[in-house]
């Protein structure tokens, strides 16, 4: 089992969610998050100088899935969330030790 934590542009959530459904991944958790990458946000120039917005709005999607589906899921997220410009986001893949279903107490494979 792996967990995907994907940080994407907010307006891409709809298409990413839809594409994940197409490959059979329905369960997910999403958050509104703020963050920044190596560029430390974005700098804008206006009439009296520059200003920086150092935390940018993004959406984080968490998915726990079988190892077999991992590559497909990563490919789908990359292709659907990509614009080619700085700020498209990142995907983190984390090993999961156990998954317990609260309703039954059963440990999922």
């Amino acid at each position: 089992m792996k967990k995907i934590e994907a940080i994407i542009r907010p307006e891409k959530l709809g298409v990413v969610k839809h594409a994940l459904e197409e490959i059979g991944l329905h369960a997910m958790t999403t958050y509104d998050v703020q963050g920044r990458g190596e560029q430390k946000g974005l700098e804008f120039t206006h009439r009296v100088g520059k200003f920086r917005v150092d935390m940018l709005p993004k959406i984080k999607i968490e998915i726990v899935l079988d190892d077999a589906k991992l590559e497909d899921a990563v490919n789908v997220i990359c292709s659907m969330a990509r614009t080619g410009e700085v700020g498209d986001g990142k995907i983190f893949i984390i090993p999961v030790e156990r998954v317990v279903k609260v309703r039954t107490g059963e440990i999922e494979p």
Partner: protein
Amino acid sequence: MDAGNTAWVLISTALVFIMTPAVGFFYGGMLGKKNVLSILGQCIIIIGMVTLIWVTVGFTLAFGGFGNALIGNFDWVMLNGVGIEPLAPYDLTSIPGILFMMFQGMFAIIAVALIIGGVAERMRLKALIIFLFIWTLLVYIPVAHWVWGGGWIAQLGALDFAGGTVVHITAGVSVLAAVIILGKRVSLSNGGTEQPHNIPFVVLGGALLWIGWFGFNGGSALAADGIAANAFVVTMVAAATAAVVWGLVNWLHLGRPGVLGMISGAIAGLVAITPACGYVNVTGAILIGMGAGVFCYGGILIKRRFSYDDALDVFGVHGIGGTWGAIATGLFATGTLASTSKGLLYGGGFALLGAQIIAVMAVYAFAFGVTFLALYAMKKVMAIRVSKEEERIGADIIQHGENAYS
């Protein structure tokens, strides 16, 4: 000077004023939380800018030169000659000229403020201010003169008691032209939707608009008389009917009546009764409210099939509602209230209905054409949209340097 009439128009003027901040909350709640301040800020900017336009040249261009077919004159520049005495030829109810001027000025402010809901979340502030300045002078003021300043629409015999054509059709149709030039928001670029961030704000703004509308319609009698009372009552009836009908249609269509929908329905009913409120009785008001609920709901559904992005359905509510109200005036005018012209269903034949349709078509063409050309020309010489990155971060931070919620 008539004390009773003056008192009522003073109150009505304040009631119409409150509609502009109300629009800020009505629209602001429907936007994302990163753009709510920008709408409230734009309302303040519009209140300032249009007030100054109005007292310098706006009032005289709209209401001066009574009987000129196309535009007023400069006789009352800087309100020279507009004082505390009644102002001919607008002196039938003996209210001070300066009060008549300010009452009409509030209408100009709210008309301009309606537009910002359509172009929200993506237009650059500087470009928006320039555009609204041009729009006030080249669209609102000429149409106000045509209808209320003795211009060609008034001479044609078309009726518009409180501004269905002047305020709502001009704003609604102009938004349609503006969004065609501006294009869609980034958040909608992949078939996504933007969720309203605070529906309680929408209800608050809608409720304040509803209250303000009693002054908008009732005050347009310019007198504390039976016509004002009739306008007040039919305004209430049409809004209530449209809210109920919208909710029912929504319930039948989607299984649940949305709160956002019901308050939008009330606004659609208020828009539709606006041109008619001096001429129709309660029966007419119920039919107008029912039409507003059904047509505006349908109009917004149809919009989803087109690719233009009228962010807050300004055309769907104000354009379609105003059009229905103008045509309904030609159907339901009783001929016994503020005008002797009778509608089609009260035995007046097609004379009034025909005049209403000509007026609507002319204002559609004029508002759409001038807005389209103005924005097309502006787009050639300046950036009228914010960049994609700025749009993602939101207008509050980018254009105002403030967060609504921290």
